[in-house]
């Protein structure tokens, strides 16, 4: 069986949906970030699949940039989580419902 683009697309969609389920159901802020990274990876698969099947190398360039941006975002997000932890001594999102510190 030759692999078509649809195989990779279904895999990407499945991982994206699992990421959505994780982001919406987790209460710990760091575990929400983990599911967010899963969603970013699913988008990478879809971009690479189309880069290959449309013979366009720009998809791989896009994926390189997405990985770099995801790294920057993870670093900044985790620094914010650290500051929240020092401020409130907890990481559950249920306790962050007031905008005023």
């Amino acid at each position: 069986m030759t692999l078509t683009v649809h195989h990779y697309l279904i895999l990407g969609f499945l991982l994206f949906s699992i990421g959505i389920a994780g982001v919406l159901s987790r209460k710990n802020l760091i575990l929400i970030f983990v599911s967010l990274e899963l969603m970013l990876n699913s988008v990478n698969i879809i971009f690479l699949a189309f880069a290959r099947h449309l013979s366009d190398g720009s998809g791989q360039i896009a994926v390189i940039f997405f990985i770099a941006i995801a790294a920057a975002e993870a670093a900044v997000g985790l620094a914010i989580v650290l500051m929240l932890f020092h401020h409130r001594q907890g990481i559950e999102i249920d306790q962050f419902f007031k905008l005023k510190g």
Partner: protein
Amino acid sequence: MQALYFYIFAVIAVIGALASIRLRNPINAILALAVSFFSLGGIYLLLAAQFVAVIQVILYTGAIVVLFLFTVMLLNLETIPKLPLTVREVAAYGMAAIFFVGMVMALKNSWSLPVFSEVRLAFPSENQDIQMLGKLLFENYVLVFQMVALILLVAMIAVAIMARKTELTQ
């Protein structure tokens, strides 16, 4: 043969993803995510994206996952207690299922398009991945490259300021 590798890597990736959203120990959930990322690197190799596969293993599993693990160990998070299924979880899984079905339905007109069934490569030859990527990166996308470098610099400065040692507030 390629289909066999694809299914092996895909099954491992999906099982790792499911584990990472359900495990109650944060360290175990992040390690399941690392397993998933490794098999995604294998899938990138199947897509003839050798450079991106190596970047995925080095950067994603080797730096970002390690960053997550360090943060979890720094905050000393505990295992989440085992609770019955809450309304929030059921609604989340239902919404994810609706999203998945919706996205697959969006594909329904394109199953028979020939452009999607031919086996092609992203670059003219399979061994020219890095040369062609370098050519694209530094000729067509050099501005984006500079901007991403600037973003990384800003992120580094922001993290250095935010993660400073401050006095304990009492």
